[in-house]
């Protein structure tokens, strides 16, 4: 008896406990209003991208030009996937139309007339960023890409994406087709909350069936998957106007870090540095590997 361990550690521990409560409160606020506050978040990675944001559990750690509307390239497809998943009937076959079969850019490829399930098309759209699958889905869900894009914009407004405006379903460069990094972080969270999307974007590869044509094994374009511990998605993008884009989501020990880079200089290494630093600064995450 009589032990009086030094209390300095206890005070520090309590301070950290309070900090955790404060962080918890921030998360709670974030759940009510999912837009992470970016005001005051420092630019800790200057020059890494035209715009970027790093969010940990709803709190923005670092950002630059995070509210600037910029071309999002194929990160657009996260919204497309969200609407497709919400429309359901993922087992339902879709007959590929001529517009879809003629889509430019990344392709599965798909031939006009073949029947592919919505689920397989979504896999192709999310992993390979296939534009033919993307157009086919927009047509299947809304009867045409124009009406689908209108639905995308309504959904964006419902999510509070105030710096986002879509002009097409797949992210092709177009005047006025833009999204902010902060908006895309919110969109990624919304998309990954849908099991049908979350289950796909975490895969390194998948087999897509294409009706009577032979199935295709496709690999994800998201290089974080399988290389970064805890990586669970979400999407890559590239166009001439947008440059290299990425939404990466990583979870460790219940802590989630989301990075969005638009027009990135070196998206993979910068994303990795952002992710690792975000976890390094997280008291709830145990050290890796050693």
């Amino acid at each position, binding site marked *: 008896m009589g032990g009086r*361990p030094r209390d300095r550690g206890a005070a520090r521990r*309590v301070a950290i*406990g309070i900090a955790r409560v404060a962080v918890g409160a921030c998360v709670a606020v974030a759940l009510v209003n999912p837009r992470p506050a970016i005001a005051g978040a420092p630019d800790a990675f200057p020059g890494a991208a035209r715009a970027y944001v790093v969010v940990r559990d709803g709190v923005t750690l*670092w950002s630059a030009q995070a509210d600037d509307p910029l071309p999002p390239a194929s990160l657009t497809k996260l919204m497309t996937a969200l609407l497709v998943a919400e429309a359901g009937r993922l087992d339902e076959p879709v007959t590929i139309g001529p517009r879809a079969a003629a889509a430019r850019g990344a392709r599965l490829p798909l031939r006009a007339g073949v029947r592919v399930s919505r689920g397989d098309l979504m896999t192709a759209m999310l992993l390979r960023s296939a534009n033919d699958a993307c157009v086919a889905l927009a047509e299947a869900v809304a009867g045409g890409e124009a009406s689908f894009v209108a639905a995308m914009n309504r959904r964006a407004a419902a999510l509070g994406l105030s710096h986002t405006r879509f002009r097409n379903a797949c992210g092709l460069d177009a005047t006025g087709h833009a999204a902010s990094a902060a908006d895309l972080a919110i969109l990624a969270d919304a998309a990954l909350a849908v099991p049908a999307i979350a289950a796909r974007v975490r895969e390194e590869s998948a087999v897509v069936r294409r009706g009577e044509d032979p199935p295709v094994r496709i690999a994800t374009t998201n290089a974080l998957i399988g*290389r970064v511990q805890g990586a669970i998605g979400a999407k890559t993008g590239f166009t001439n106007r947008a440059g290299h884009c990425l939404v990466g989501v990583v979870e460790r020990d219940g802590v989630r870090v989301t990075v969005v880079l638009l027009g990135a200089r070196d998206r993979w290494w910068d994303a990795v540095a952002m992710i690792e630093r975000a976890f390094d600064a*997280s008291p709830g995450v145990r050290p890796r590997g050693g």
Partner: protein
Amino acid sequence: MKPSFRRAVRCALLLCNAAFVTVPAWAQAQDKGEQWEITTRMEMAGMPAALPATTTRICVGKNAKDEVPVPKQDNCRTTESRRTGNTMRYRMECTGKDAMVGEGEITYAGDTYTGRMHMTGKSGGDTFDMTQNFTGRKLGECTGTVQQQAKAAQAQAATQVAESCAQAADRLTWQLVFEPGALCAGQQAQFCERVSRYAQEWREPKAYAAYRQQGVGDPTEAFARCGQDFAGVAKVACARGVETRDWAFVSSGTCDADVRVVGDANCKGRAFTGMDRNLVPLCSRYATLTRGTATAASEDAARRAPTPTAQDAVTQGIGAVRKLLPF
């Protein structure tokens, strides 16, 4: 908040110590006593949250509940005690280093009672203010004599202290061994033997990594208390990690000086998508160290500072002592 919490911790230990010595005072009777279950909850000014309630069972003499259950330390005395109906009120004073005054009351209702004790005073130059609420209910006859029960309780207490001290050595909780008046102050030699063993074992990355994975605190101070150089041990482990290409260990945050050197040769200018996946942990750490500004790096530094854990010293100290609380 820090000073008030410091006071609170000191007070908690003080009262726990005082309360513990009440057991023998209640256990003087030779007859088979009554078994009581007692639940206590302490509230301390400056504590951001209440300590958890503690429930314990004790044996007391059949008439002992009429005694004043106040600490029976040498420097504490009951200055006033009166019973009105079912309620007993008392005042007490302690002098010396941890001088304090306390007022309490206990209200009996058949085989149950409720009570409250408020204490104020000074400890280590800091003032404190705390309240202990407690309830009790009689469970029945004790299975042995009160003295046997008291001996059993003391034996149990000794076992718990031994377990706490063994755990302190396992987890290098040096505060429980080296702080003045620490619970395990007599076990410095055993503690340092353990540190010496760790200092040898941790030269191998796998052993060091296994320790880190337990989520315990920074061992630097524990090593220093025993005359060992933890940084030197870590340096040897890192060199071994580089030699065996244990990149998971080298990139874990312990070997950043090595990461910068090895990373310059193996990571700089390499494409993320085309590289050997075994190198990804190393090069990810390299990227983390070489990209971004001091703003982000300062977060790293904060992360790598010794961090208290759920089993830190004071928690263990309070936990160990509170296990012994009779009421």
